[in-house]
Each structure stands twice: as structure tokens, then as C-alpha cells.
């Protein structure tokens, strides 16, 4: 039992470290593609964290609203089952993360086609320059 708790804590620690490193990458890396990768890592780590909170040692009793007749069966259910709700959340969150990743990748590709760079600092300087010079459009 002690080993299990230790392992779970190590697992939690590694997820949190993962999130911190990914946030660092998201904020400090100037490359747009690396930013997108870091964002994916953050999203997936949060998903894993969510699954972790549904595990029965962390969140002991799953929401059971109708106890079946058979008492031994229901006791078995309460002891062995995990919270199914968080898994549904995670499925939804993964799908949304996929949509975001696709959208951002298309944007990065299009930006690269137009300007030849995905470096944030260069892009921002181009943007400022265009705002001063260019008139037209819409």
C-alpha cells in the first residue's frame, strides 16, 4: 500500500514538472511551432492529471446514485470502480485539443508561406512595420 502511494505521488510530481516545463517553453521559446508543441504538452498533461484525479485512491467514492439490489455486488462496485465522469471530460478535451492543434498548425504553415519565418520576434517586427507603411486592403 505504501509503495502505491509513493508511486502515485511520484506520478503527480512528474505531471506537474511536465506542465511547468511546457509553460516555460510556451512563454520563452520564440519559435511558433515549438510554442504549439508546448501547448499540446500542457493540454495533454492536464488531461492526464484529470484522469489521475478520477483514480479511486485519490477520489475514493464514485458517484453511484442507484444502489443495485444485490448488496455484495454493490460493495464490489464501490470498492473496484473508478470515477467514469473524468474520462468523459478527457475525451472531450482531447478532441478540442486536436481541433486547436490543427487550427494553429494551419496558421503557422500559412504564416511561413507568406513571410518565410516562424520566429515570433521577426513576425512582430514585420507586423509593426506593415502597420506603419501599408494602407490598403479589406
Amino acid at each position: 500500500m505504501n509503495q502505491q502511494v509513493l508511486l502515485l505521488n511520484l506520478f503527480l510530481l512528474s505531471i506537474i514538472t511536465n506542465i511547468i516545463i511546457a509553460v516555460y517553453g510556451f512563454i520563452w521559446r520564440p519559435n511558433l511551432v515549438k510554442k504549439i508543441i508546448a501547448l499540446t504538452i500542457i493540454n495533454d498533461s492536464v488531461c492526464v492529471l484529470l484522469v489521475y484525479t478520477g483514480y479511486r485512491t485519490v477520489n475514493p467514492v464514485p458517484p453511484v446514485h442507484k444502489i443495485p439490489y444485490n448488496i455484495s455486488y454493490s460493495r464490489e462496485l464501490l470498492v473496484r470502480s473508478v470515477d467514469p465522469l473524468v474520462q468523459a471530460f478527457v475525451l472531450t478535451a482531447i478532441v478540442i485539443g486536436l481541433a486547436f492543434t490543427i487550427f494553429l498548425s494551419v496558421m503557422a504553415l500559412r504564416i511561413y508561406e507568406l513571410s518565410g519565418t516562424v520566429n515570433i520576434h521577426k513576425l512582430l517586427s514585420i507586423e509593426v512595420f506593415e502597420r506603419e507603411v501599408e494602407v490598403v486592403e479589406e
Partner: protein
Amino acid sequence: MVCIVFLKVAIALTPLIPIVSSILIPLLRLFTRRKVLFNIILLSTVFIDTILVFYTSYHVYFQDSIIVYCFSNWFPPIGICYVVDKLSIFMSTILVTIYSIVSIYTIWYSRHIPNYYFFYTVLLIHLGGILGLFYTSDLFNIYVMIEVIGLSAYSLVSFYHNKLRSLIASTRYALLGAFYTTLFLLAVMFIHISLGTLNIADLSIKLGFGENYIGSCFLENTTTLNNGYVLMALVLIIWTTLFLSAVFPNHFWLPSAHSEAPSPASALLSGVTVGVGVYVIIRLLYLLMHSSVLDIIVEGLVNTLMILSVISIFYGALMMSVEDDVKRILAYSTILNIGYVFMGLSLGTPYGVSASLLHFLNHSIGKASAFLSIGVFIRNYRSRNIHVLEGVGRENVLLTSFLTISLLHLIGIPPTIGFYSKLLLFQAFINSRAYGLALVVVLGTAASAYGYVRLIEHLWHPPIHGVLYRVEKIHLSTPVLVSLLILTTIMFTLGLSYQWISHYMESTGFYATDPIMYIDSLCSVFRELHP
């Protein structure tokens, strides 16, 4: 009885109809290229939604009822329910009104863009997402709807995909949006592990609010309450909300995003989409924070909110008078007005909330009108620079007068409704003895007036140092004229009939700060459906 059933079906269908027709448009595009057909689909979808929302709002306001629809008849904390009360119907009435006017304008605007059907699709998805967020009573559903709104908003911003600037603006908005919504997911997780439920009314009861009035309701708690987690969740939710509404530290995506979008999309994003954050924060602030568990922390959070909104008012007013891009001027004015709305919210009294809701209504009407009329100038003279547009207003007197009226409305000049919301805000601060904040309302208005007047002044006067050339007069097409006339009429009508609407505004404010009825309606549904 039939009426109630029809109402329930109506609120369940309202967010669904735009989503269905947004799927229909690209499919139809495979078979036909007749633009009239797509116009009809867009207009009919938005108008059907408008009729449904107005029908619901008639019942909610005049018969004082709350309409609850639970999907598949699952009882509240487990199933997902749509709950329509005064607050959500107020916000969605503003939404559909602005949407129907902007979609009339879009008929004109889409003549100039080749892939208009894509624009229509994204507009309808956006409408469905916001309506779903206003109706739902489930926190995870709110998260999903924020993502739907977000993705469609980023697509609207990057609509001109040959312009590097709009791509950069959209990418910045999308990167931040993805990050902040992940934080919202984290907040949902914290609430789920410490309270074991995600239904907003249930959360409120689990946090110890309303037990004296309602008694025990919903299911027993299976988890242990952890105050630290709940506080963490509240902070994360408020931080996400500040991003959605562009209040001071999270405002920096807004000017570029709202100015690079096509003009109708700017009107919608600037007028209505920022209201998503306002809605979420009113809902959660007064439903979750009135609980005994979190009483001490609330004070600090609310004060922080107040300081941030004051900073964003002055920041918006300052940047408005510096900026040269006409659309960016209006975008900074959005930051300013949302600052006012949040200032009223964080006061915590019903008067403050009703004043800030009225101010949000004024902001969305005025900002939509301003963006739509400036969009015609930009479309015709091919520029957004204030110095290039100098003197063009003199040739188009009608259009300039529409723009001027909307800007005066945003400043708050009496015959329009814009005056009354600032008056109400001022009165609310005076009533709760916050004289410094009342001064902020006046000073912010004075500082922003320069920015608005500067825009008009540049449009009206011919350039001093340039060559004086006569520009071609713009032919105003019927959709543009109709949409701008409707918006201007709304401004004056509401302003002149303020005596009659003030009662409804006050009741909305009182209702929003006192969530007992909201919880009670869900409880009665629970007792009805629970086996």
C-alpha cells in the same frame, strides 16, 4: 401546458438551429453556387433564433418564470440542463438582436468577398456557441462552449488569409485562448475533485449557500470539501474570464484581433463576444461566491477585479487618443467600456449589476453601429488610417451622421440610452459611498471623449497640409442603410423610453445578485425527476 412544452422545446432548439444550418451551408455549396440561397439560409436561421429568443424572453420577463429543460430527462446534477432565467435571456436577447442586424449588413459585405459561404458558416457556429453558453447550467458545458466560441472567433479573425497581419493577430489570439481554456479545464478539475459536481446550482448548495431557504436538495456529497481547491478554481476561472472579456492584464490580443477581422465580424466580436466573460463572471460570482465557505476570500478577489477594471478604463482611453488606425481606436474603446462593465459588477450591489448590464447593452449597440458604419468607409476608400480618411466624411453626410450618433451614444450624450447607463453607474457608486470610483466614471468619460471626437474631426475636416481632392460619394446600398437605421432607432427609442425599461433593468440586477430562484427552479426539477 402546451405552451410550457413548446417553450422547453424552443430553448433546447435555440442553440441547435444555427449549428445545423452551419453544417448545411458547406454541403449545399457542393451542389449550387447561387448566393441568394445562402443569404436566405443565413437570414432565416438568425431570424428564427431571434423569434424564439424573444418568445422566451416574453415568458421570462412578463410571467416571471424560469424555464428548465433537461436533456433526456436526466435529473439536474447528473444530466445537463438548460436553464433560462432573466440574466441569460437578457444577454441572449442582446446577442440575437445584434446578430440579426449584422447579418443584414453581411448581405452587402459578402458581395465583395469570394468565399462568403465560409464566413456564413463560421458566423452561425459562433452564434450557436454563445447561445449554448448563455443557456447551460453545467460548468463543463461552459468550458466546451468557450472552446466553440473561441475556435470560431479565431477563424473569423483570420478570415483574410492572404494578409500576414490578420494571420498573426489570429495566431496570437488562438495561442492565448488555448492556454487560458486549459486553465479553465484545470479549474473544472479542481471543482470536480473537491465538490463532486459541476452543476452550478448544486455547487452553490454544496458550498453552503441557500440551505436556510431551500433545505437539502440534490444528491449527498461523496467528496471532501477542500477550500484551497475551490479558491484555486475560482481564481483560474476569473483569470480566464478576464481573458475572454479583455480586462487589463489580458487585454493585449484584442486591438489587433478585432481590427483585422472583417467589419461585420469586428462588430460581433467587439459588441457581443466580450459579453461571454461578463455573463460567466456574473453567474459564478453571485452563485458561488455568496456562500459562507468563501466569504473572506471574496473581498480580496472583488477588490482586485475593481482595480484591474479601473486600470483598463484609463488604458483604453489613453490608447484611443494615440492610435491612428480607425478600427484600433474602436477596439481600444471596447477595452474601456468593458472596464466600466466590470467596475459595476465588482461593486456587488444589485444597482451596480443592473447598471453594468445596461452599460453592456449600450456598448454592444453603439460598438456594432460604429464598426458597421466605419466598415463602409474602409471598404470604399481602401484604408484604415485616420490621416488617409481625412475629409471623406464631408462627402457622405448620412453615413457620417450614423457614425457620429453612435460615437455620441458611446460617450453618453443624453437623448441616447448611453447617458443613462453611466448615470446609473455613477448613482450606484454614490449610493455605496465609493466616491473615488464615481469620479473614475466621470474622468474616464472625459478622457475617452477626446478619442471619439478626434475620429469624427479627422473624418469631417479636409487635410490641412495635403492636396485637397474630391472623393467619390459612396452609394449606400439598402442592407447597410436598413441595419444602421435600425441600430440608430434602437439607441433613441431606448433613450426616450428609459422610464419604462428601467424597471426591467432593476429586476434583472436584483435577480442576478440573488440566485435563490435559480437554485430553487433546478431543485424542483430534481424533486420531480429523481426516482
